[in-house]
């Protein structure tokens, strides 16, 4: 449904779209599915080989009540089947699709709680969990000059995967049985990579007196990889007839806070009498990324196309338009991106009371979506820029299957 679900989700997807929706239903829900997305993104007509994103979606909604007070707990997990999270830092001037390159290669784990304020008004919120890496690697021993592989070094490591949590909050209001209005806020996060390493030791050849005694080489690399802007989404769901549901979302995304995705490297070296033969560069500065805020409209429709006492079929469709937050690349950086038009279709089969074991409905949903990135050209100011002018375009194809169980 084009991702327009802020006012229309009450299954485990509410953990992402709007946590307030968790308390809307009264059934225990367990959802499990699989999703695959293949980007085909090109620069100057050549596929740049952005990795596919694929993995399992697992979610649960457990509602409860104490007298008239209703509440619900929900948890949702997107588990990539290749890795949990990939943090990558690249040279600042390396061309890349900055919003796709590594952004989908991460675990998503959210836990939420929702409560009913009064019938028809619900609020929910929770935390999403991520991690970033910070650490120090120390080595000591002897560095062999003639044959580096004969070096005798042992290591000490002190690396933390530091927890990064960001909150999400949502409100859902049903003023009438045919209209729902929702608002969701998702906070921003930055995943950085901060690593230091240092080698202390003698330099020479095994079995001979060292050429340099007690030298060192140290490096510290600080870089940014994943960034998500804070987002505010307002949405509505309109039940036109018993069989037709229309949904709309409007998202504001604060991309102007996007930090520079460059690594900052600090080097240190002491090799005694040979220090004069080494010129290490100092830290350098980079131009601002210049990203800008965007507004993303989304719309979806669901039609109950066929209904019998034990079976029903829903058909869904949607569209969203996401303007690019990336400015034209005229300087040193070469961040490729373009506006995104996403078209989605889906279908759901709902089976009711198919066996005494499953007294409540079981739904099987499939969806397919295509995101189209029209050609966008960047013209460099410097004619000697080693990337030069480039044109970016592409498509992202996505398919998914989900089984939703109610108890």
């Amino acid at each position: 449904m084009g991702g327009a679900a802020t006012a229309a989700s009450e299954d485990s997807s509410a953990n992402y779209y709007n946590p307030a929706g968790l308390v809307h239903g009264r059934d225990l829900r367990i959802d499990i599915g699989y999703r695959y997305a293949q980007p085909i993104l090109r620069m100057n007509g050549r596929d740049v080989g952005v990795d596919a994103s694929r993995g399992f979606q697992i979610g649960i909604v457990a509602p409860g009540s104490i007298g008239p007070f209703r509440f619900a707990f929900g948890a949702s997990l997107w588990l990539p089947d290749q890795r949990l999270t990939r943090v990558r830092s690249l040279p600042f001037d390396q061309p890349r699709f900055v919003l796709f390159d590594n952004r989908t290669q991460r675990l998503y784990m959210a836990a939420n709680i929702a409560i009913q304020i009064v019938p028809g008004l619900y609020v929910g919120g929770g935390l999403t969990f991520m991690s970033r890496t910070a650490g120090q690697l120390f080595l000591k021993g002897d560095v062999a000059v003639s044959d580096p592989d004969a070096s005798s070094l042992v290591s000490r490591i002190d690396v933390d995967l530091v927890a990064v949590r960001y909150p999400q909050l949502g409100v859902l209001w049903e003023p009438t049985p045919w209209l729902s209005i929702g608002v969701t806020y998702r906070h921003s996060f930055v995943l950085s990579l901060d690593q230091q390493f240092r080698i202390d030791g003698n330099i020479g050849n095994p079995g001979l007196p060292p050429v340099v005694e007690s030298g060192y080489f140290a490096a510290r690399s600080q870089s940014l990889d994943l960034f998500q802007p804070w987002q505010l989404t307002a949405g509505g769901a309109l039940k036109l007839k018993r069989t037709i549901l229309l949904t709309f979302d409007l998202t504001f995304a604060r991309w102007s806070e996007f930090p520079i995705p460059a690594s900052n490297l600090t080097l240190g070296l002491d090799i005694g009498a040979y220090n004069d033969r080494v010129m290490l560069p100092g830290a350098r500065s980079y131009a601002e990324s210049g990203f800008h805020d965007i507004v993303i409209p989304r719309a979806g429709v669901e039609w109950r196309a066929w209904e019998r006492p034990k079976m029903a079929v829903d058909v869904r469709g949607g569209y969203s338009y996401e303007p690019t937050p990336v400015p034209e690349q005229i300087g040193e950086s070469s961040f490729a991106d373009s506006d995104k038009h996403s078209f989605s279709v889906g279908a759901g089969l709902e089976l009711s009371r198919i066996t005494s074991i499953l007294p409540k409905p079981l739904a099987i949903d499939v969806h397919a979506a295509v995101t189209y990135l029209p050609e966008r050209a960047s013209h460099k100011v410097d004619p000697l820029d080693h990337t030069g002018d480039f044109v970016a375009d592409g498509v992202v194809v996505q398919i998914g299957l989900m089984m939703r169980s109610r108890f």
Partner: protein
Amino acid sequence: MFGMGARGPGMGATGVADAEGYDATYTNPAGLVAPTRRRLTLGYVHAGYRLNLDGMHRPVDVTDGLVLGADIPVPFGGVLRDRIALGLGFYFPFGVVNRARSPFPDQPRLALLDTRTQVVSVLVAAGVRIHRRVDVGVGVLALAALVGTITIADIGGRITTVAEEQLTTSLTPILGARVRALGWLRLGAVFRGESKSIYNIEVTNTLGARLPLTLPTLRLAGTAQYDPMQAAVEGSFVPLSWLTVDVGVTWKHWSAFGLPTENATLGAPPQPAPGFVDTAVPRIGAEASKRWAQVTLQGRTGYFFEPTGARGPVLLDADRHVLTFGAGMTWANRLTTLQVDAFVQWHHLQSTPRVGGDFAALGATIGLDL
């Protein structure tokens, strides 16, 4: 290290034969199928350490973490009614997801205590009642492993780093069974696979033209967190209506633990054998309960002896005597049921010439039926 939940940790870390709900995700997933109510539990665990190594105080990071548990009986109908349940158990240390901290291989360390609680634990399990007297369960414990590369390169006359680090999942199975042999006797057995969080980072450079020497490729690899393969059996006796006594033993395959830190280069001299040995941990725990109207109070105590698996010259540890205490309160009213539990564990290291000290852990949980 302190167990999951607050009941078992107060009873000498027993529970293989009688733990229920999310506590059972680790202790014995077969116990998940016993409760028929949906419950959400939130808790907190803290531990402080006073340890010494070679006559010096050895600082160990304080343990502070959040416990989250969910008991979810799956309300199937028909022949599966009240026969299948899911359990979720999470332990989140405040601040870190995982910590890889290893000193140089020749530096003595507390091999099994230094950073053992600084890792997220995620447990997902299911229990199935296959017979009115027999339950079985299966669960998965997930840990994260860190692999990556860092390249320091001279690209177009500029020195920069190209880094890629990935968190991958390491999954460990937990299998359990439980039998209600007699009205006053339950028996349980559980197998837990080896649980390991590794790191493997390769550092390369292409600074040849910048430096008057070539630095070797460095591989920083080792095991950040390790729990050995284990098998435990236990009996839970109810000699009086208000008293439960658990007795069990756990075998731990510590000898499979390799070197916590590998050499960074091939030219480094081989490290001595780590000297880990298998151990058997005897446990005993007891719980007394008394009910007044809607309120039931529980008092718990227990003891276990944890012989150390680390007996090497550098990777050090000591046998531990552990005394545990706990209390619980169940308030079952017309609207819901509230369960509050707390525990304290006192770990005393049986002093050796090189290692000694004590540490204590305490925790509390509050659970609410949904």
